[in-house]
């Protein structure tokens, strides 16, 4: 365990656990409150399993009213609350507290309404991402954002993290695909943000809530937008003998006026891991491949795939395959979607990063990552959303070797700082959580962080929701002692930092 709870981020209270159990039991179903060690165990971490802590108490409400009662009981006693969805998050945002309530929303899992005429679905936060698309399918509609964990991850968690996926380039993130939220503030007030139309009244709280990592309120109902399923889709698989050429091809595709539905890159290491795992037929001799999906009407897809093929060939691809049917399209994607399990096959542990950079710095940053990988003597595979400039370097390590995780984290931190330096960000879609809280001190200056705290205070004056996550205290940053990178200007730019 290498996360560090800063003293300035701890909410102190003297409420005995037994008192809290008594207070909450009254409001929850028989099996809706967990406190036995064996029951708490499954909740000790989220998808960032390297960071664990046994929860104090776990509440599993089934209704909005129960959620509200839990919040009021906690607020009255000054007990902090961590909200948890399906627990697939990758930044430790749902890591429990020593003396706080873990509020799991998985039992609020009803699809309340599918409204095909208005192309929207009204759902509770525990509904999985994929279940929405399934429920809408017989109307010829679907929910566009598709994070890799879509079978398991909940829509409430997607809202909390502003989750992305492989189709963001054309269809946007969660924030672009929802239109209304109902949430409770920690004060127990129910707020509706957005509306039944495309836009809501007043300030855009819908946008502010999205990606707020459970710090501002507890979302209990979400209205998502649905889109008509595209008539046709085709994937081009382009193979390159040089990763720099593949990176340049990404920019060339965009510059050609195409907005592919997805534009993904995998490097040699990832290609081999996938081929060893499931043999989808990716070219093993390639240094990198690009998967470029175009979708829309038949005619649009025909036109765009012709243009895309030309651009990829001109950019130096030694081979471009175009999917000839739906089965082949799915096979091209299967390898990409299995990349993480494939990595799991060849290494005891891996650590997935999430920096985003301007696309034109891609080749340079990939080279920088390779140098850092060399420096730390840790292998790094790259499988990522190239079209969005959203990197997912996977660092391969063995957690059973003492010090290996710490070394991995140091490499990860250097990769993120490299992203910030080229004008990018420390997280594109996984969130800050507890994982990247120190890097927030690198990304933002003191005054920006203070503004975040002021916003937090407007919603949650006592700071009881998810303390110690997403936004570091200034005390933490002072201790972390990070150099603040401002507009790519580091102190002592003459120093070699790769």
């Amino acid at each position: 365990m290498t996360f560090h709870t800063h003293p300035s981020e701890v909410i102190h209270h003297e409420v005995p656990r037994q008192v809290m159990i008594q207070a909450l039991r009254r409001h929850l179903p028989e099996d809706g409150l967990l406190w036995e060690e064996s029951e708490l165990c499954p909740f000790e971490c989220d998808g960032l399993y390297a960071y664990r802590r046994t929860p104090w108490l776990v509440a599993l409400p089934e209704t909005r009213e129960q959620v509200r009662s839990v919040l009021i009981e906690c607020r009255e006693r000054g007990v902090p609350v961590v909200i948890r969805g399906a627990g697939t998050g990758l930044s430790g945002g749902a890591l429990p507290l020593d003396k706080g309530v873990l509020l799991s929303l998985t039992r609020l899992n009803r699809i309340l309404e599918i409204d095909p005429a208005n192309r929207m679905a009204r759902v509770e936060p525990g509904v999985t991402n994929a279940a929405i698309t399934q429920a809408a399918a017989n109307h010829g509609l679907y929910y566009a954002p598709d994070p890799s964990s879509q079978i398991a991850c909940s829509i409430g968690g997607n809202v909390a993290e502003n989750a992305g996926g492989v189709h963001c380039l054309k269809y946007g993130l969660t924030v672009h695909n929802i239109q209304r939220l109902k949430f409770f503030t920690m004060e127990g007030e129910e707020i509706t943000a957005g509306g039944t139309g495309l836009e809501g009244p007043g300030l855009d709280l819908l946008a502010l809530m999205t990606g707020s990592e459970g710090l501002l309120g507890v979302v209990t109902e979400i209205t998502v937008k649905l889109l008509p399923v595209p008539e046709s889709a085709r994937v081009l698989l382009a193979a390159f003998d040089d990763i720099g050429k593949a990176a340049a091809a990404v920019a060339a595709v965009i510059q050609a006026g195409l907005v592919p539905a997805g534009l993904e890159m995998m490097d040699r290491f990832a290609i081999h891991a996938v081929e060893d795992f499931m043999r989808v037929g990716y070219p093993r001799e390639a240094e990198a491949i690009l998967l470029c999906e175009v979708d829309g009407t038949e005619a649009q897809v025909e036109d765009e795939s012709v243009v895309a093929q030309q651009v990829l060939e001109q950019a130096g691809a030694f081979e471009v395959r175009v999917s000839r049917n739906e089965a082949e399209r799915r096979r091209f994607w299967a390898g990409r979607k299995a990349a993480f399990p494939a990595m799991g096959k060849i290494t005891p542990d891996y650590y997935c990063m999430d920096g985003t950079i301007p696309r034109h710095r891609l080749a340079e940053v990939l080279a920088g990552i390779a140098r850092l990988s060399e420096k730390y003597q840790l292998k790094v595979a790259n499988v990522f959303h190239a079209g969005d400039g959203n990197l997912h370097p996977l660092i391969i390590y063995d957690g059973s070797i003492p010090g290996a995780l710490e070394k991995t984290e140091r490499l990860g931190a250097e990769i993120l700082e490299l992203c910030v330096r080229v004008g990018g960000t420390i997280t594109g879609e996984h969130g800050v959580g507890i994982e990247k809280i120190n890097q927030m001190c690198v990304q933002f200056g003191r005054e920006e962080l203070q503004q975040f705290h002021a916003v937090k205070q407007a919603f949650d004056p006592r700071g009881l929701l998810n303390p110690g996550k997403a936004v570091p205290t200034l005390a933490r940053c002072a201790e972390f002692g990070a150099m603040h990178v401002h507009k790519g200007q580091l102190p002592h730019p003459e120093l070699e930092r790769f």
Partner: protein
Amino acid sequence: MDLTQEIQTQVVSAIAQRRELNIVGGGSKAFYGREPVGEPLPVSGHRGVIEYEPGELVLIARCGTPLAEIESLLAGEGQMLPFEPPHFGPATLGGAVAAGLSGPRRPFTGAVRDFVLGVKIVTGRGEVLSFGGQVMKNVAGFDLSRLLAGSLGTLGVLLEISLKVLPSPVMEVTLRREIPPALALESMTKLTNQSLPLTGLCYLEPFLYIRIGGTESAVASAIAAVEGEVQDDEENFWLGLREQQLPFFTEGAANLWRLSVAPATPIPDLQGEWILDWGGAQRWLRASIPAKDIFDYAARLGGHATLFRTQGLRQQIFQPLPPALARLHQTLKEAFDPHRLFNPGRMYEAF
């Protein structure tokens, strides 16, 4: 021209003297919202495109940059502002983002805030802060950039805005079909629920206007699939709609209302004339009935109404907020502008 320091200095001195400020860009949207009060803070001199990289689909410009200048720069590279913002005069980028208004393309591409990637602002504490950035995906910290879009200058002075832009469709064609008002919504739903490259969908009695965009053969095949006659003066209709130059907007003295509701909502029995834009999700109403009736109607539907243009007093312009939501607006305002200096009362009387 970079006037960051000058603007910051003016804000700092306004804080010291507790002077209320009325942020003014091109002045093209002075009619919008509640009556502006306070000393004018002109920002149109703070102008210029800072960065535009067509291959990145990103444009960064200062707030005072004329919208027209940005649009022609983008057009030169075959790109566009995907939210098709209305100008209403010599509009600036900052004003367009602060007003948060989007044009006919909005339901098919997205709103102003959807394309805001980052902002630099002066807060009501006189600090110059940056949020977001120039990358497509960024979830570090609260998304304050998008919150600033549509905030009508009540939270801070926008200095710089970084936007995602998109390639323009290779070509666009408009079809027109005559249909009775009773069938308008149903016809629009039929179109929006299909996989079609729509870029505009509006009903103005007696015609349904359908704009289609894409590659040449994509447009040709869509024309074959959609009923309607190809229009020659298509540009004029969409421009007139966006800029409110159609006779619907310019004639008569009745109030102009904007209603945001679920697109398939039946047309209500309110006395007035309608345009159904955004496939039905944005509706323009010319009516002289009491404001309360319209706000109540919108609230019942979970939507909202805006008194967009009026010759009367500009009192209650925006949908009244439920008490808990109104309190949250108040506390958020304090988080950005504790002395209540920026555009006081422009959105709601209370802040």
